[in-house]
Protein backbone atom coordinates (compact mmCIF):
# COMPACT_ATOMS: atom_id res chain seq x y z
CA UNK A 1 0.00 0.00 0.00
CA UNK A 2 2.69 2.46 1.07
CA UNK A 3 6.34 2.28 0.09
CA UNK A 4 9.08 4.87 0.58
CA UNK A 5 12.70 4.80 -0.65
CA UNK A 6 15.57 7.07 0.36
CA UNK A 7 13.24 9.82 1.50
CA UNK A 8 15.03 12.98 2.64
CA UNK A 9 13.94 16.54 3.27
CA UNK A 10 15.63 19.77 4.26
CA UNK A 11 14.13 23.09 5.24
CA UNK A 12 15.93 26.08 3.80
CA UNK A 13 19.28 26.54 5.54
CA UNK A 14 18.84 23.54 7.83
CA UNK A 15 20.46 20.12 7.79
CA UNK A 16 18.81 17.37 5.77
CA UNK A 17 16.59 14.86 7.59
CA UNK A 18 16.85 11.31 6.24
CA UNK A 19 13.85 9.07 6.80
CA UNK A 20 13.94 5.26 7.10
CA UNK A 21 12.27 3.35 4.29
CA UNK A 22 8.71 2.32 5.10
CA UNK A 23 6.80 -0.65 3.71
CA UNK A 24 3.24 -0.86 4.85
CA UNK A 25 0.65 -3.34 3.58
CA UNK A 26 -3.14 -2.91 3.58
CA UNK A 27 -4.52 -3.70 7.06
CA UNK A 28 -1.14 -3.10 8.74
CA UNK A 29 -0.82 -0.61 11.56
CA UNK A 30 2.43 1.18 12.29
CA UNK A 31 3.56 3.63 14.91
CA UNK A 32 6.17 6.24 13.95
CA UNK A 33 7.86 7.41 17.11
CA UNK A 34 10.21 10.32 17.52
CA UNK A 35 11.02 13.33 19.63
CA UNK A 36 10.11 16.87 18.69
CA UNK A 37 12.24 18.05 15.79
CA UNK A 38 12.84 14.57 14.44
CA UNK A 39 10.75 15.44 11.37
CA UNK A 40 7.66 13.38 12.24
CA UNK A 41 5.17 15.91 10.95
CA UNK A 42 7.32 16.64 7.89
CA UNK A 43 7.29 12.93 7.05
CA UNK A 44 3.56 12.70 7.49
CA UNK A 45 3.02 15.74 5.25
CA UNK A 46 5.29 14.21 2.63
CA UNK A 47 3.36 10.93 2.77
CA UNK A 48 0.07 12.79 2.54
CA UNK A 49 1.18 14.74 -0.51
CA UNK A 50 0.93 18.00 1.42
CA UNK A 51 4.58 18.85 0.78
CA UNK A 52 6.65 18.54 -2.36
CA UNK A 53 9.07 15.61 -2.35
CA UNK A 54 12.69 16.84 -2.56
CA UNK A 55 14.53 13.57 -2.64
CA UNK A 56 13.51 9.91 -2.72
CA UNK A 57 10.31 8.22 -3.74
CA UNK A 58 6.86 7.62 -2.26
CA UNK A 59 4.51 5.07 -3.74
CA UNK A 60 0.93 4.86 -2.55
CA UNK A 61 -1.43 2.27 -4.00
CA UNK A 62 1.11 1.72 -6.82
CA UNK A 63 1.11 5.43 -7.72
CA UNK A 64 4.32 7.46 -7.60
CA UNK A 65 3.36 10.62 -5.70
CA UNK A 66 6.07 12.70 -7.37
CA UNK A 67 4.40 12.07 -10.73
CA UNK A 68 1.29 13.90 -9.54
CA UNK A 69 0.93 17.63 -9.13
CA UNK A 70 -1.70 20.31 -8.74
CA UNK A 71 -5.32 19.30 -8.96
CA UNK A 72 -4.42 15.69 -9.82
CA UNK A 73 -2.51 15.32 -6.55
CA UNK A 74 -5.38 16.94 -4.62
CA UNK A 75 -7.82 14.54 -6.25
CA UNK A 76 -5.59 11.52 -5.52
CA UNK A 77 -5.26 12.58 -1.88
CA UNK A 78 -9.00 13.05 -1.52
CA UNK A 79 -9.66 9.56 -2.89
CA UNK A 80 -6.85 7.53 -1.34
CA UNK A 81 -5.61 9.15 1.84
CA UNK A 82 -7.42 10.02 5.05
CA UNK A 83 -5.56 12.26 7.50
CA UNK A 84 -6.24 12.94 11.19
CA UNK A 85 -4.42 15.96 12.66
CA UNK A 86 -3.41 16.90 16.17
CA UNK A 87 -6.03 19.66 16.23
CA UNK A 88 -9.35 18.88 14.62
CA UNK A 89 -10.60 21.75 12.45
CA UNK A 90 -13.88 21.84 10.59
CA UNK A 91 -15.64 24.12 8.18
CA UNK A 92 -17.19 26.30 10.86
CA UNK A 93 -20.32 27.21 8.96
CA UNK A 94 -21.30 23.56 8.47
CA UNK A 95 -22.59 21.00 10.97
CA UNK A 96 -21.06 17.54 11.41
CA UNK A 97 -23.12 15.85 8.69
CA UNK A 98 -22.51 18.70 6.23
CA UNK A 99 -18.77 18.63 6.91
CA UNK A 100 -18.68 14.93 6.05
CA UNK A 101 -20.90 15.43 2.97
CA UNK A 102 -18.48 18.15 1.84
CA UNK A 103 -15.56 15.73 2.15
CA UNK A 104 -17.41 13.22 -0.04
CA UNK A 105 -18.10 15.96 -2.56
CA UNK A 106 -14.49 17.22 -2.61
CA UNK A 107 -13.22 13.70 -3.30
CA UNK A 108 -15.65 13.52 -6.21
CA UNK A 109 -17.79 10.84 -4.59
CA UNK A 110 -21.61 10.85 -4.49
CA UNK A 111 -23.29 12.06 -1.31
CA UNK A 112 -24.02 9.09 0.93
CA UNK A 113 -25.72 10.13 4.16
CA UNK A 114 -26.51 6.53 5.30
CA UNK A 115 -22.78 5.73 5.09
CA UNK A 116 -21.97 8.86 7.12
CA UNK A 117 -24.56 7.87 9.71
CA UNK A 118 -23.15 4.37 10.04
CA UNK A 119 -19.59 5.69 10.51
CA UNK A 120 -20.75 8.18 13.15
CA UNK A 121 -22.69 5.37 14.79
CA UNK A 122 -19.56 3.19 14.95
CA UNK A 123 -17.71 6.14 16.54
CA UNK A 124 -20.53 6.63 19.10
CA UNK A 125 -21.35 10.00 17.53
CA UNK A 126 -24.88 9.27 16.25
CA UNK A 127 -26.51 12.00 18.38
CA UNK A 128 -23.99 14.57 17.04
CA UNK A 129 -25.05 14.21 13.40
CA UNK A 130 -26.44 17.73 13.17
CA UNK A 131 -24.29 19.35 15.87
CA UNK A 132 -22.18 22.41 15.08
CA UNK A 133 -18.49 21.52 15.23
CA UNK A 134 -17.68 24.32 17.68
CA UNK A 135 -20.09 22.78 20.23
CA UNK A 136 -18.22 19.45 20.36
CA UNK A 137 -15.79 18.41 23.12
CA UNK A 138 -12.12 17.73 22.29
CA UNK A 139 -12.69 13.96 22.30
CA UNK A 140 -15.77 14.29 20.10
CA UNK A 141 -13.94 16.58 17.70
CA UNK A 142 -11.13 14.04 17.32
CA UNK A 143 -13.66 11.26 16.70
CA UNK A 144 -15.40 13.36 14.02
CA UNK A 145 -11.96 13.94 12.50
CA UNK A 146 -11.53 10.15 12.37
CA UNK A 147 -14.94 9.87 10.72
CA UNK A 148 -13.78 12.43 8.17
CA UNK A 149 -10.60 10.45 7.48
CA UNK A 150 -12.67 7.28 6.99
CA UNK A 151 -15.63 8.60 5.04
CA UNK A 152 -14.17 8.09 1.58
CA UNK A 153 -12.86 4.57 2.38
CA UNK A 154 -9.19 5.44 1.78
CA UNK A 155 -6.49 2.76 1.48
CA UNK A 156 -4.15 4.75 3.72
CA UNK A 157 -4.93 6.56 6.95
CA UNK A 158 -2.34 8.95 8.37
CA UNK A 159 -2.61 10.35 11.89
CA UNK A 160 -0.44 13.16 13.25
CA UNK A 161 -0.37 13.19 17.05
CA UNK A 162 -4.08 12.30 17.16
CA UNK A 163 -4.13 11.88 20.94
CA UNK A 164 -1.78 14.54 22.28
CA UNK A 165 -4.61 16.97 23.07
CA UNK A 166 -6.68 14.32 24.85
CA UNK A 167 -6.82 13.09 28.44
CA UNK A 168 -6.17 9.41 29.23
CA UNK A 169 -9.72 8.10 28.92
CA UNK A 170 -10.40 10.00 25.70
CA UNK A 171 -7.00 8.99 24.37
CA UNK A 172 -7.74 5.32 24.86
CA UNK A 173 -11.21 5.54 23.32
CA UNK A 174 -10.02 7.53 20.29
CA UNK A 175 -7.05 5.27 19.60
CA UNK A 176 -9.13 2.09 19.97
CA UNK A 177 -11.73 3.43 17.59
CA UNK A 178 -9.05 4.48 15.11
CA UNK A 179 -7.45 1.05 15.28
CA UNK A 180 -10.81 -0.76 14.95
CA UNK A 181 -12.08 1.31 12.06
CA UNK A 182 -8.84 1.10 10.11
CA UNK A 183 -8.98 -2.68 10.52
CA UNK A 184 -12.62 -2.78 9.48
CA UNK A 185 -11.89 -0.79 6.32
CA UNK A 186 -8.75 -2.87 5.72
CA UNK A 187 -6.74 0.34 5.41
CA UNK A 188 -3.07 0.85 6.19
CA UNK A 189 -2.77 2.98 9.33
CA UNK A 190 0.29 5.05 10.13
CA UNK A 191 0.36 7.04 13.36
CA UNK A 192 3.06 9.62 13.99
CA UNK A 193 3.43 10.40 17.68
CA UNK A 194 5.63 10.94 20.68
CA UNK A 195 2.78 9.83 22.95
CA UNK A 196 4.05 6.89 25.00
CA UNK A 197 0.51 5.82 25.82
CA UNK A 198 0.25 4.42 22.30
CA UNK A 199 3.36 2.20 22.50
CA UNK A 200 1.39 -0.57 24.17
CA UNK A 201 -1.39 -0.60 21.57
CA UNK A 202 0.69 -0.92 18.41
CA UNK A 203 3.34 -3.53 18.07
CA UNK A 204 4.87 -2.40 14.77
CA UNK A 205 7.01 0.63 15.46
CA UNK A 206 9.51 2.75 13.56
CA UNK A 207 11.74 5.04 15.55
CA UNK A 208 12.83 8.29 13.92
CA UNK A 209 16.10 9.71 15.14
Amino acid at each position, binding site marked *: MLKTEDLAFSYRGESTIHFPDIHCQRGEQWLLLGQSGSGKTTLLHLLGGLRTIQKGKIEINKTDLSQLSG*AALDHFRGQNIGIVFQ*QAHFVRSLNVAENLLLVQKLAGRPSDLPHIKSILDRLHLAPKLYAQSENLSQGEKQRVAIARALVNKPGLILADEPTSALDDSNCLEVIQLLEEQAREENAALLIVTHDNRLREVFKKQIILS
Partner: protein
Amino acid sequence: MNLLKLSWKNLTYKPLNMILSLVLFALGTGLVALLLLLNTQLQKQFEQNLAGVDLVIGAKGSPLQLILSSMYHIDAPTGNISVKEAKPFLNPKHPLIKDALPLSMGDSYQGYRIIGTTYEILEFYKASIAQGKLWEKTFEVTLGAKIAQDLNLKIGDEFKSSHGFVIDDNLTHDDASSFVVVGILESTGSVIDQLILTDTRSVWEVHDHGAHEASEEASSENHNHNHDHDHAHGDHDHHDHASPAPASPKSFLEEPDQQITALLLRFKNRGYQSLNMQRNINENTDLQAATPAIEINRLYSMMGVGTDTLQVLAMVIVFVSALSVFIALFSSLKERKYELALMRVSGASRGTLFSLLILEGVLLAILGCILGLILSHGSMSLLSDYLEESYRYPFTGWMFLKEEVWLIVGALIIGFVAALIPAIQASRTDISETLTSS
Protein backbone atom coordinates in the same frame (compact mmCIF):
# COMPACT_ATOMS: atom_id res chain seq x y z
CA MET B 1 -23.02 19.98 -0.36
CA ASN B 2 -21.91 21.82 -3.49
CA LEU B 3 -19.82 24.99 -3.62
CA LEU B 4 -22.80 27.29 -4.05
CA LYS B 5 -24.46 25.92 -0.94
CA LEU B 6 -21.16 26.09 0.95
CA SER B 7 -20.58 29.72 -0.03
CA TRP B 8 -24.13 30.57 1.07
CA LYS B 9 -23.50 28.84 4.42
CA ASN B 10 -20.24 30.76 4.80
CA LEU B 11 -21.97 34.08 4.10
CA THR B 12 -24.83 33.46 6.51
CA TYR B 13 -22.39 32.27 9.19
CA LYS B 14 -21.53 35.95 9.72
CA PRO B 15 -24.95 37.52 9.16
CA LEU B 16 -24.02 41.03 10.28
CA ASN B 17 -21.11 41.27 7.83
CA MET B 18 -23.38 39.94 5.13
CA ILE B 19 -26.17 42.40 5.91
CA LEU B 20 -23.78 45.36 5.86
CA SER B 21 -22.45 44.41 2.43
CA LEU B 22 -25.94 43.64 1.14
CA VAL B 23 -27.44 46.92 2.35
CA LEU B 24 -24.59 48.95 0.88
CA PHE B 25 -24.86 47.12 -2.42
CA ALA B 26 -28.64 47.46 -2.46
CA LEU B 27 -28.43 51.21 -1.76
CA GLY B 28 -25.90 51.78 -4.53
CA THR B 29 -27.58 49.73 -7.23
CA GLY B 30 -31.02 50.82 -6.05
CA LEU B 31 -30.12 54.46 -6.49
CA VAL B 32 -28.69 53.82 -9.96
CA ALA B 33 -31.79 51.87 -10.97
CA LEU B 34 -34.13 54.52 -9.57
CA LEU B 35 -32.36 57.25 -11.52
CA LEU B 36 -32.60 55.11 -14.65
CA LEU B 37 -36.31 54.54 -14.14
CA LEU B 38 -37.03 58.21 -13.45
CA ASN B 39 -34.94 59.51 -16.33
CA THR B 40 -36.30 57.00 -18.81
CA GLN B 41 -39.89 57.70 -17.95
CA LEU B 42 -39.42 61.47 -17.93
CA GLN B 43 -37.65 61.41 -21.28
CA LYS B 44 -40.30 59.10 -22.69
CA GLN B 45 -43.00 61.53 -21.57
CA PHE B 46 -41.15 64.50 -23.02
CA GLU B 47 -40.41 62.82 -26.31
CA GLN B 48 -43.81 61.25 -26.75
CA ASN B 49 -45.41 64.67 -26.38
CA LEU B 50 -43.18 66.45 -28.87
CA ALA B 51 -45.87 65.43 -31.40
CA GLY B 52 -43.75 66.65 -34.30
CA VAL B 53 -44.20 70.26 -33.22
CA ASP B 54 -41.46 72.45 -34.71
CA LEU B 55 -42.30 75.81 -33.19
CA VAL B 56 -44.51 77.14 -30.43
CA ILE B 57 -45.77 80.71 -30.56
CA GLY B 58 -47.10 82.50 -27.50
CA ALA B 59 -46.73 85.61 -25.42
CA LYS B 60 -43.30 86.98 -24.52
CA GLY B 61 -41.69 85.41 -21.49
CA SER B 62 -39.55 82.39 -20.70
CA PRO B 63 -39.31 80.09 -23.74
CA LEU B 64 -39.09 77.03 -21.48
CA GLN B 65 -42.23 78.12 -19.67
CA LEU B 66 -44.00 78.54 -22.99
CA ILE B 67 -43.05 75.00 -24.03
CA LEU B 68 -43.89 73.46 -20.65
CA SER B 69 -47.27 75.18 -20.46
CA SER B 70 -48.47 74.68 -24.01
CA MET B 71 -46.95 71.29 -24.85
CA TYR B 72 -46.70 69.52 -21.51
CA HIS B 73 -49.35 71.41 -19.57
CA ILE B 74 -47.30 71.51 -16.38
CA ASP B 75 -46.54 75.21 -16.03
CA ALA B 76 -48.56 78.43 -16.25
CA PRO B 77 -48.74 80.07 -19.70
CA THR B 78 -46.60 83.13 -20.37
CA GLY B 79 -49.70 85.14 -21.26
CA ASN B 80 -52.04 85.47 -24.19
CA ILE B 81 -51.82 86.64 -27.77
CA SER B 82 -54.56 88.24 -29.83
CA VAL B 83 -56.36 86.37 -32.57
CA LYS B 84 -55.29 89.16 -34.93
CA GLU B 85 -51.63 88.33 -34.26
CA ALA B 86 -52.18 84.61 -34.51
CA LYS B 87 -54.25 84.71 -37.67
CA PRO B 88 -51.41 84.78 -40.24
CA PHE B 89 -50.02 81.51 -38.89
CA LEU B 90 -53.40 79.84 -39.16
CA ASN B 91 -53.67 80.67 -42.86
CA PRO B 92 -53.73 77.32 -44.67
CA LYS B 93 -51.91 78.91 -47.61
CA HIS B 94 -48.86 79.84 -45.50
CA PRO B 95 -45.77 78.85 -47.53
CA LEU B 96 -43.79 77.30 -44.63
CA ILE B 97 -46.37 76.05 -42.15
CA LYS B 98 -47.91 72.63 -42.70
CA ASP B 99 -50.42 72.96 -39.89
CA ALA B 100 -51.04 75.15 -36.86
CA LEU B 101 -52.93 74.33 -33.70
CA PRO B 102 -54.43 77.14 -31.59
CA LEU B 103 -54.64 76.56 -27.82
CA SER B 104 -56.67 78.63 -25.39
CA MET B 105 -56.46 77.91 -21.73
CA GLY B 106 -57.28 79.43 -18.40
CA ASP B 107 -59.69 77.08 -16.74
CA SER B 108 -59.58 73.64 -15.31
CA TYR B 109 -61.79 71.03 -13.75
CA GLN B 110 -60.46 69.06 -10.77
CA GLY B 111 -56.96 70.11 -11.78
CA TYR B 112 -57.33 68.96 -15.40
CA ARG B 113 -56.93 71.74 -17.97
CA ILE B 114 -59.73 72.80 -20.27
CA ILE B 115 -58.23 73.57 -23.68
CA GLY B 116 -60.01 75.54 -26.35
CA THR B 117 -58.70 74.30 -29.67
CA THR B 118 -59.58 72.86 -33.08
CA TYR B 119 -60.05 69.29 -34.28
CA GLU B 120 -56.47 69.19 -35.57
CA ILE B 121 -55.32 68.40 -32.02
CA LEU B 122 -56.44 64.81 -32.58
CA GLU B 123 -54.16 64.52 -35.55
CA PHE B 124 -51.24 66.09 -33.61
CA TYR B 125 -51.43 63.50 -30.82
CA LYS B 126 -52.75 60.64 -33.01
CA ALA B 127 -55.87 60.42 -30.87
CA SER B 128 -59.24 59.03 -31.86
CA ILE B 129 -62.72 58.98 -30.43
CA ALA B 130 -63.55 56.03 -28.18
CA GLN B 131 -67.09 56.97 -27.22
CA GLY B 132 -69.51 59.68 -28.33
CA LYS B 133 -68.30 62.44 -30.60
CA LEU B 134 -66.15 65.53 -30.81
CA TRP B 135 -67.43 68.84 -29.43
CA GLU B 136 -69.65 70.72 -31.90
CA LYS B 137 -71.15 73.59 -29.93
CA THR B 138 -69.61 75.74 -27.25
CA PHE B 139 -69.63 74.18 -23.77
CA GLU B 140 -69.49 70.74 -25.26
CA VAL B 141 -66.31 68.90 -24.28
CA THR B 142 -64.49 65.77 -25.34
CA LEU B 143 -62.41 64.23 -22.57
CA GLY B 144 -58.98 62.61 -22.60
CA ALA B 145 -59.09 58.95 -21.58
CA LYS B 146 -57.33 59.43 -18.24
CA ILE B 147 -59.73 62.13 -17.04
CA ALA B 148 -62.79 60.07 -17.85
CA GLN B 149 -61.26 57.21 -15.92
CA ASP B 150 -59.92 59.19 -12.94
CA LEU B 151 -62.97 61.41 -12.46
CA ASN B 152 -65.41 58.73 -13.53
CA LEU B 153 -67.10 61.01 -16.05
CA LYS B 154 -69.51 59.64 -18.65
CA ILE B 155 -71.16 61.06 -21.72
CA GLY B 156 -73.91 63.45 -20.70
CA ASP B 157 -72.25 64.42 -17.40
CA GLU B 158 -72.03 68.14 -16.67
CA PHE B 159 -69.52 70.14 -14.67
CA LYS B 160 -68.58 73.73 -13.98
CA SER B 161 -65.05 74.83 -14.67
CA SER B 162 -62.75 76.38 -12.13
CA HIS B 163 -60.59 79.43 -12.67
CA GLY B 164 -56.89 78.68 -13.06
CA PHE B 165 -55.19 75.31 -12.85
CA VAL B 166 -55.48 74.40 -9.20
CA ILE B 167 -58.29 72.60 -7.44
CA ASP B 168 -60.10 75.28 -5.41
CA ASP B 169 -63.84 75.38 -4.95
CA ASN B 170 -63.78 79.15 -4.39
CA LEU B 171 -62.61 79.66 -7.95
CA THR B 172 -65.47 77.77 -9.57
CA HIS B 173 -67.35 79.71 -12.23
CA ASP B 174 -70.74 79.24 -10.60
CA ASP B 175 -72.45 81.77 -12.80
CA ALA B 176 -71.18 80.41 -16.10
CA SER B 177 -72.81 77.62 -18.10
CA SER B 178 -71.92 74.04 -17.34
CA PHE B 179 -69.75 72.01 -19.67
CA VAL B 180 -71.34 68.87 -21.09
CA VAL B 181 -69.35 65.74 -21.87
CA VAL B 182 -70.15 64.62 -25.42
CA GLY B 183 -67.25 62.32 -26.12
CA ILE B 184 -64.26 60.45 -24.70
CA LEU B 185 -60.99 59.79 -26.49
CA GLU B 186 -59.05 56.57 -26.83
CA SER B 187 -56.02 56.39 -24.52
CA THR B 188 -52.83 57.44 -26.34
CA GLY B 189 -50.23 57.59 -23.57
CA SER B 190 -49.56 61.23 -24.48
CA VAL B 191 -50.57 64.47 -22.82
CA ILE B 192 -53.94 64.60 -24.62
CA ASP B 193 -55.14 61.86 -22.23
CA GLN B 194 -55.32 64.48 -19.49
CA LEU B 195 -56.85 67.38 -21.40
CA ILE B 196 -60.46 68.51 -21.59
CA LEU B 197 -61.00 69.61 -25.18
CA THR B 198 -63.56 72.13 -26.27
CA ASP B 199 -64.14 74.92 -28.73
CA THR B 200 -62.05 78.06 -28.41
CA ARG B 201 -65.21 80.09 -27.89
CA SER B 202 -66.15 78.08 -24.81
CA VAL B 203 -63.07 79.35 -23.03
CA TRP B 204 -63.99 82.91 -23.92
CA GLU B 205 -67.62 82.56 -22.93
CA VAL B 206 -66.94 81.19 -19.47
CA HIS B 207 -65.21 84.40 -18.63
CA ASP B 208 -67.47 86.79 -20.55
CA HIS B 209 -70.50 85.66 -18.66
CA GLY B 210 -71.68 88.73 -16.76
CA ALA B 211 -68.44 88.94 -14.82
CA HIS B 212 -67.44 92.54 -15.32
CA GLU B 213 -64.63 92.59 -12.86
CA ALA B 214 -63.12 89.75 -14.82
CA SER B 215 -63.43 91.87 -17.96
CA GLU B 216 -61.52 94.69 -16.40
CA GLU B 217 -58.82 92.43 -15.19
CA ALA B 218 -58.54 90.86 -18.57
CA SER B 219 -58.20 94.15 -20.41
CA SER B 220 -54.79 94.71 -18.93
CA GLU B 221 -52.09 93.08 -21.03
CA ASN B 222 -49.75 90.42 -19.61
CA HIS B 223 -51.91 89.55 -16.62
CA ASN B 224 -49.54 86.94 -15.58
CA HIS B 225 -49.37 87.33 -11.81
CA ASN B 226 -49.56 83.72 -10.88
CA HIS B 227 -50.97 80.38 -11.87
CA ASP B 228 -54.54 81.33 -11.33
CA HIS B 229 -54.62 84.33 -13.55
CA ASP B 230 -53.59 83.08 -16.92
CA HIS B 231 -56.46 82.54 -19.16
CA ALA B 232 -57.57 83.41 -22.57
CA HIS B 233 -60.45 85.73 -22.41
CA GLY B 234 -61.38 88.90 -24.14
CA ASP B 235 -62.92 92.07 -22.91
CA HIS B 236 -66.19 92.11 -24.71
CA ASP B 237 -69.44 90.56 -23.96
CA HIS B 238 -71.75 90.13 -26.88
CA HIS B 239 -72.52 86.41 -27.08
CA ASP B 240 -75.89 84.91 -26.62
CA HIS B 241 -75.35 82.70 -23.64
CA ALA B 242 -78.82 81.33 -23.42
CA SER B 243 -78.26 78.98 -26.33
CA PRO B 244 -74.71 77.84 -27.08
CA ALA B 245 -73.63 78.94 -30.53
CA PRO B 246 -72.77 76.23 -32.99
CA ALA B 247 -69.02 76.34 -33.25
CA SER B 248 -67.62 75.95 -36.67
CA PRO B 249 -64.07 75.12 -35.68
CA LYS B 250 -62.36 78.10 -37.28
CA SER B 251 -65.09 80.69 -36.61
CA PHE B 252 -63.10 82.17 -33.73
CA LEU B 253 -60.80 83.73 -36.31
CA GLU B 254 -63.52 86.24 -37.07
CA GLU B 255 -63.00 87.92 -33.73
CA PRO B 256 -59.59 89.56 -34.05
CA ASP B 257 -59.75 91.24 -30.63
CA GLN B 258 -60.22 88.02 -28.69
CA GLN B 259 -57.23 86.16 -27.31
CA ILE B 260 -55.74 82.72 -27.46
CA THR B 261 -52.80 81.35 -25.44
CA ALA B 262 -50.48 79.66 -27.87
CA LEU B 263 -50.02 78.17 -31.32
CA LEU B 264 -48.29 74.87 -32.04
CA LEU B 265 -46.76 74.86 -35.54
CA ARG B 266 -45.53 72.09 -37.77
CA PHE B 267 -43.44 73.11 -40.77
CA LYS B 268 -43.62 71.71 -44.27
CA ASN B 269 -39.87 71.27 -44.06
CA ARG B 270 -37.23 72.51 -41.66
CA GLY B 271 -35.16 74.79 -43.86
CA TYR B 272 -33.31 77.95 -42.97
CA GLN B 273 -36.45 79.89 -43.78
CA SER B 274 -38.27 78.26 -40.92
CA LEU B 275 -35.33 78.95 -38.63
CA ASN B 276 -35.42 82.57 -39.73
CA MET B 277 -39.09 82.67 -38.94
CA GLN B 278 -38.40 82.01 -35.27
CA ARG B 279 -35.83 84.82 -35.17
CA ASN B 280 -38.15 87.19 -37.03
CA ILE B 281 -40.99 86.56 -34.63
CA ASN B 282 -38.81 87.07 -31.59
CA GLU B 283 -37.11 90.21 -32.90
CA ASN B 284 -39.88 91.97 -34.79
CA THR B 285 -43.17 91.14 -33.06
CA ASP B 286 -44.74 91.10 -29.63
CA LEU B 287 -44.92 87.34 -29.88
CA GLN B 288 -42.46 84.74 -28.73
CA ALA B 289 -41.45 81.68 -30.72
CA ALA B 290 -39.69 78.73 -29.10
CA THR B 291 -38.44 75.37 -30.41
CA PRO B 292 -39.57 72.45 -28.22
CA ALA B 293 -36.56 70.21 -28.89
CA ILE B 294 -34.10 72.96 -27.90
CA GLU B 295 -35.99 73.91 -24.74
CA ILE B 296 -36.38 70.30 -23.65
CA ASN B 297 -32.69 69.70 -24.16
CA ARG B 298 -32.04 72.77 -22.04
CA LEU B 299 -34.30 71.29 -19.36
CA TYR B 300 -32.43 67.97 -19.54
CA SER B 301 -29.10 69.69 -19.07
CA MET B 302 -30.48 71.61 -16.09
CA MET B 303 -31.86 68.43 -14.50
CA GLY B 304 -28.66 66.69 -15.53
CA VAL B 305 -26.65 68.48 -12.84
CA GLY B 306 -28.89 66.98 -10.18
CA THR B 307 -28.93 63.49 -11.65
CA ASP B 308 -25.17 63.62 -12.24
CA THR B 309 -24.60 64.39 -8.57
CA LEU B 310 -26.86 61.54 -7.52
CA GLN B 311 -25.15 59.24 -10.00
CA VAL B 312 -21.74 60.07 -8.53
CA LEU B 313 -23.16 59.44 -5.07
CA ALA B 314 -24.51 56.08 -6.23
CA MET B 315 -21.13 55.17 -7.70
CA VAL B 316 -19.43 56.06 -4.40
CA ILE B 317 -21.86 53.83 -2.51
CA VAL B 318 -21.29 50.98 -4.98
CA PHE B 319 -17.54 51.41 -4.54
CA VAL B 320 -17.84 51.36 -0.75
CA SER B 321 -20.01 48.25 -0.95
CA ALA B 322 -17.40 46.55 -3.14
CA LEU B 323 -14.84 47.55 -0.53
CA SER B 324 -16.98 46.05 2.24
CA VAL B 325 -17.28 42.78 0.30
CA PHE B 326 -13.51 42.77 -0.12
CA ILE B 327 -12.84 43.49 3.55
CA ALA B 328 -15.40 40.94 4.75
CA LEU B 329 -13.88 38.19 2.60
CA PHE B 330 -10.27 39.16 3.23
CA SER B 331 -10.63 39.32 7.01
CA SER B 332 -12.51 36.02 7.05
CA LEU B 333 -9.51 34.34 5.39
CA LYS B 334 -7.47 34.57 8.58
CA GLU B 335 -10.17 32.86 10.62
CA ARG B 336 -10.80 30.32 7.91
CA LYS B 337 -7.23 29.34 7.04
CA TYR B 338 -7.48 25.95 8.80
CA GLU B 339 -10.76 25.03 7.19
CA LEU B 340 -9.43 26.06 3.79
CA ALA B 341 -6.30 23.93 4.35
CA LEU B 342 -8.51 21.06 5.47
CA MET B 343 -10.59 21.34 2.34
CA ARG B 344 -7.32 20.99 0.39
CA VAL B 345 -6.42 17.90 2.44
CA SER B 346 -9.83 16.43 1.62
CA GLY B 347 -9.23 16.77 -2.10
CA ALA B 348 -10.10 20.38 -2.96
CA SER B 349 -7.76 21.92 -5.53
CA ARG B 350 -6.47 25.48 -5.53
CA GLY B 351 -9.08 26.21 -8.17
CA THR B 352 -11.84 24.96 -5.89
CA LEU B 353 -10.86 27.40 -3.13
CA PHE B 354 -10.51 30.22 -5.67
CA SER B 355 -14.00 29.48 -7.01
CA LEU B 356 -15.44 29.30 -3.51
CA LEU B 357 -14.25 32.78 -2.58
CA ILE B 358 -15.27 34.25 -5.94
CA LEU B 359 -18.67 32.64 -5.56
CA GLU B 360 -19.08 34.25 -2.13
CA GLY B 361 -18.28 37.71 -3.54
CA VAL B 362 -20.48 37.31 -6.60
CA LEU B 363 -23.33 35.86 -4.55
CA LEU B 364 -23.23 38.89 -2.23
CA ALA B 365 -23.17 41.27 -5.18
CA ILE B 366 -26.02 39.58 -7.04
CA LEU B 367 -28.19 39.40 -3.92
CA GLY B 368 -27.41 43.04 -3.14
CA CYS B 369 -28.22 44.01 -6.71
CA ILE B 370 -31.53 42.13 -6.69
CA LEU B 371 -32.38 43.75 -3.35
CA GLY B 372 -31.48 47.12 -4.87
CA LEU B 373 -33.71 46.50 -7.89
CA ILE B 374 -36.62 45.56 -5.65
CA LEU B 375 -35.90 48.67 -3.59
CA SER B 376 -35.79 50.94 -6.65
CA HIS B 377 -38.96 49.56 -8.23
CA GLY B 378 -40.74 49.68 -4.91
CA SER B 379 -39.78 53.27 -4.21
CA MET B 380 -40.52 54.22 -7.83
CA SER B 381 -44.05 52.88 -7.53
CA LEU B 382 -44.47 54.82 -4.27
CA LEU B 383 -42.98 57.88 -5.92
CA SER B 384 -45.16 57.47 -9.01
CA ASP B 385 -48.30 58.24 -7.01
CA TYR B 386 -46.76 61.44 -5.78
CA LEU B 387 -45.45 62.37 -9.24
CA GLU B 388 -48.80 61.68 -10.83
CA GLU B 389 -50.51 63.84 -8.27
CA SER B 390 -48.27 66.80 -8.91
CA TYR B 391 -47.70 66.45 -12.67
CA ARG B 392 -50.63 64.29 -13.76
CA TYR B 393 -48.28 62.27 -15.91
CA PRO B 394 -48.43 58.51 -15.53
CA PHE B 395 -45.35 56.97 -13.91
CA THR B 396 -44.90 53.35 -12.92
CA GLY B 397 -42.49 51.33 -10.78
CA TRP B 398 -43.30 48.14 -12.63
CA MET B 399 -41.60 48.73 -15.92
CA PHE B 400 -38.27 47.00 -16.50
CA LEU B 401 -35.42 48.38 -18.55
CA LYS B 402 -32.77 46.50 -20.45
CA GLU B 403 -30.24 48.68 -18.60
CA GLU B 404 -31.16 46.74 -15.46
CA VAL B 405 -29.71 43.60 -17.03
CA TRP B 406 -26.50 45.58 -17.41
CA LEU B 407 -26.77 46.59 -13.77
CA ILE B 408 -26.84 42.91 -12.79
CA VAL B 409 -23.91 42.19 -15.10
CA GLY B 410 -22.08 45.14 -13.52
CA ALA B 411 -22.81 43.80 -10.03
CA LEU B 412 -21.41 40.44 -11.12
CA ILE B 413 -18.20 42.08 -12.27
CA ILE B 414 -17.91 44.18 -9.09
CA GLY B 415 -18.47 41.10 -6.92
CA PHE B 416 -15.84 39.24 -8.92
CA VAL B 417 -13.28 42.04 -8.66
CA ALA B 418 -13.92 42.53 -4.93
CA ALA B 419 -13.41 38.82 -4.31
CA LEU B 420 -10.40 38.47 -6.62
CA ILE B 421 -7.61 39.23 -4.14
CA PRO B 422 -9.11 37.16 -1.29
CA ALA B 423 -9.70 34.33 -3.78
CA ILE B 424 -6.10 34.41 -4.99
CA GLN B 425 -4.96 34.48 -1.36
CA ALA B 426 -7.16 31.49 -0.55
CA SER B 427 -5.92 29.51 -3.54
CA ARG B 428 -2.34 30.10 -2.40
CA THR B 429 -3.02 28.52 1.01
CA ASP B 430 -0.05 26.27 1.78
CA ILE B 431 -1.56 23.23 3.44
CA SER B 432 1.54 22.06 5.23
CA GLU B 433 2.61 25.47 6.55
CA THR B 434 -0.90 26.29 7.73
CA LEU B 435 -1.40 22.99 9.52
CA THR B 436 1.97 23.01 11.25
CA SER B 437 1.43 26.56 12.50
CA SER B 438 -1.39 25.42 14.77
